[in-house]
């Protein structure tokens, strides 16, 4: 009994210390947005001596901030939708149809799994430029979808090929066409794996920095990671403003995380493992 309670103390203390280290920077950031410069200098962790709401309000009232979020939403939305659509169609073909070169194509699509995007970024930039897509949402969306295909096809294909064959046979005998089998049988049965792929694509696209940095040079379509860097560059060490801006941009991610925390953790880890 005594040993057991000793273990409990040790567990709690360790966990609290670790959680503190984890959250302290976030705590300091959110509160920092409410502090005056003098307050920030002497008191980075405590509550503000005087709550200054100007920073938060002026940012939340600015079109700049909402523009950034809108751009990020557009890019992320289309990236996720197209990743799911394109990769599930390909995975369906690879899992259910037998044709010459099937294995070869499967391997081909998984080539992208083990090298960094940075290797390809300059030629991708030149291609996107030659297609006239520079400074457009598509210049970011299309390469993102392409780079997502590797892991998503692998994940989806694995899941699809484990669905019971009898279902498809029955549907086929009833005269169901492939596209209909795909829409009405495979996809509805595959929600868990679609969620996993979707979460991976969503988080990746929302936080992506290098690709938009290279492709987008126009403030009006900046996604938030570019916008936040620009803001920081503009206000430098006026930390009150910068921290308020950082807090507001991370709010959507945290909110979304709190809503679907279990799915996100499971999606990001199991997806990474299998992909």
């Amino acid at each position: 009994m005594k040993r057991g309670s000793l273990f409990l103390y040790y567990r709690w203390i360790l966990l609290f210390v670790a959680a503190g280290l984890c959250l302290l920077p976030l705590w300091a950031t959110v509160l920092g947005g409410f502090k005056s410069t003098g307050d920030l200098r002497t008191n980075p962790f405590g509550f503000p001596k005087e709550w200054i709401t100007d920073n938060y309000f002026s940012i939340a009232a600015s079109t700049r901030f909402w523009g950034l979020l809108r751009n990020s939403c557009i890019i992320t939305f289309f990236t996720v939708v197209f990743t799911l659509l394109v990769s599930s169609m390909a995975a369906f073909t690879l899992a259910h149809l037998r044709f010459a070169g099937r294995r070869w194509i499967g391997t081909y699509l998984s080539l992208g799994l083990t090298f960094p995007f940075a290797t390809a970024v300059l030629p991708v930039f030149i291609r996107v430029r030659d297609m006239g897509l520079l400074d457009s949402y598509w210049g970011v969306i299309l390469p993102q979808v392409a780079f997502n295909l590797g892991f998503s096809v692998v994940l989806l294909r694995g899941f699809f090929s484990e669905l019971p064959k009898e279902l498809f046979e029955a549907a086929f005998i009833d005269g169901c066409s492939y596209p209909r089998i795909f829409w009405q049988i495979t996809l509805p049965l595959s929600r868990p794996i679609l969620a996993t792929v979707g979460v991976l694509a969503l988080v990746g696209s929302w936080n992506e920095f290098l690709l938009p940095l290279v492709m987008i040079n126009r403030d009006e379509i900046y996604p938030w990671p570019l916008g936040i860097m620009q803001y920081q560059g503009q206000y430098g060490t006026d930390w009150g403003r910068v921290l308020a801006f950082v807090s507001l941009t991370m709010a959507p991610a945290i909110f979304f995380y709190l809503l679907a925390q279990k799915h996100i953790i499971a999606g990001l880890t199991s997806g990474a493992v299998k992909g």
Partner: protein
Amino acid sequence: MALKPALRSEVTGAAVERRQDARPKRGIWKRFEGLSHSSTLTAYLIFLPPALLLFTLFVVLPVVEAAYYSFFNWNGYGSPQKWVDLDNFIRVLNDPIFHQSLINNLLVIAVSAFVQVPAALWLALLISDRSRSSVVFRAIFFVPYILGEVVAGLIWRYMYDGNYGVVAVVFHWFGREAPQVLAERGWATAALLLVIVWKYFGFHMALFIAGRQGIPGDVVESAQIDGANRWQITRHVVLPMMRPVVVLSLFFSILGSLQTFAIIAALTDGGPSNSTHSAVSYLYTFGIKRMRVGFGSAVGVVLFIICVLVMLFYKRLFMREKEAR
């Protein structure tokens, strides 16, 4: 790539057999049974091409092109004409800043292997049960991982600020003037490593928790019945069974290290005096920013080769017993 339409699909295969039972077909038509269903063809023509096209255009061709461009001195306009042999490669491989970048990549891997992974494993074993407190802590530890790298970089840039931030306060407690952490060579690298540990710790922990939960309960139970104590169970039962997960987790550390960019861009931008670059931030700063397409591509090719070699080597060495996927 010519996709030969199927003679038969897997699904049709079964269906065809049944239909044949009912009404045997004659002669040549039998061979084209699969095709007679026009939707098979539709599936090939609509389902596969988008993926192949996108993947070829934006992933495979660019890598091939990078290899080609790397032999030119080219600013990206017109067509590459100034062939320079291996000049770009020689310049990259002899650049001390690039060496420093690779060392930094190695440091990230080392810190991950010797600090991050053991700590994550340690904590993961404390919260892998299904109690409510465990669930809450798990959620907390995962938070830094879902934040954007840029956000992580900026938050810590503030934390490290010698006039504000934690560092300032901690040093003032001891009555000293705080250093500008991010402006001093040795400090800046250490600071970067700490941020990386902070940011990715939760991911590794989640992997370990999943791994621990995958160990069947009766294995642990039978050890308990045999009189093993908590430490013995952890040491001799749980840890050995976690080996594949540790191998996998280190694999992600290596992969992640080779991609590190945004954190650096937000935290130090490679400074002071180019001492905190990673391979990718080196590529960005000296290739992309200055539109030296040839040089940047050469860096990309070197990075590609390193990546493929490391991955093959690592898989061969550690992931043999279990298939990599």
